[in-house]
């Protein structure tokens, strides 16, 4: 239980909590970025260096930016419209929190009571770029290609969906 893990876990929890509770969506996104950096730290703590850096690259570098862009392109020009009203104790919010709390209770209970059937090996294996690359090009080459196709499809799909339709452009 290293200090590093505790710090990163704290960052992750704090960031995500802020992301889900701040009223200003921009703050939410920025906190989310912080939280995800924390998650990346958790990955590093687990020895998955490649995944950790990928996490930062993808989430901080792309997803967060994408979300801000989306925000800007929807209501970015009206700052006040962004801020959600305070209604923490409205009916739907309460029911949402209750549901989430329920889920956490069962998941947390399951997590803390879990006992692995086979003991783990103590030494953390290497999961650096080289090992990941070798695995991707050999065992997982088919999934890799599928993911490639998926990303291409998503790229094209996103462009097509987000394009203004004909009459909107004219």
């Amino acid at each position, binding site marked *: *239980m290293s200090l590093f*893990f505790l710090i990163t*876990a704290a960052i*992750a*929890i704090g960031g995500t909590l802020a992301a*889900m509770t701040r009223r200003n*969506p921009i703050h939410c*996104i920025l906190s*989310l970025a912080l939280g995800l950096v924390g*998650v990346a730290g*958790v*990955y590093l703590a*687990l*020895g*998955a260096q*490649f*995944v950790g850096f*990928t*996490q930062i690259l*993808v*989430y901080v570098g792309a*997803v967060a930016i994408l*979300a801000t862009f*989306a*925000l800007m392109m*929807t*209501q970015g020009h009206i700052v006040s419209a962004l801020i*959600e009203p305070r209604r923490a104790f409205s009916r739907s*919010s309460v*029911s*949402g929190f209750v*549901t*989430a*709390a329920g*889920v956490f209770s069962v*998941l947390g209970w399951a*997590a*803390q009571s*879990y006992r*692995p059937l086979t*003991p*783990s090996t103590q030494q*953390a*294996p290497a*999961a650096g770029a080289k*090992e*990941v690359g070798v*695995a*991707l090009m050999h065992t*997982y080459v088919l*999934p890799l290609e599928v*993911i490639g196709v*998926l990303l291409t499809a998503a*790229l094209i*799909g*996103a*462009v097509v*969906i*987000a394009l*203004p339709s004909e009459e909107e452009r004219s």
Partner: protein
Amino acid sequence: MTPLNLFLLLSALLFSIGLAGALTRRNAILVLIGIELMLNAANINLIAFWRFGPNPEALTGVMFAIFSISVAAAEAAVGLAIILAVYRHNKTTNLNQIDTLKG
């Protein structure tokens, strides 16, 4: 309380936070962010099980996490594009006002 349980607990917590956000926020973009958060929580699980599992040499968890991140990125791109399209149509991203799927 083994390290694995701790990671799982963290994952469960993040998952629940994401779920709470997704359930309570009204802004579609933030709901999407909540969902991303849930995916991340799942990834922590994957990595943790890989790290403390019986056969870490296979890199299965890492691979799964990488693919999951890729899929999440694709999902975010498409999801945000959809939100843009919906916004253009409805002039809002408030989910309470978007209910054309009503039965």
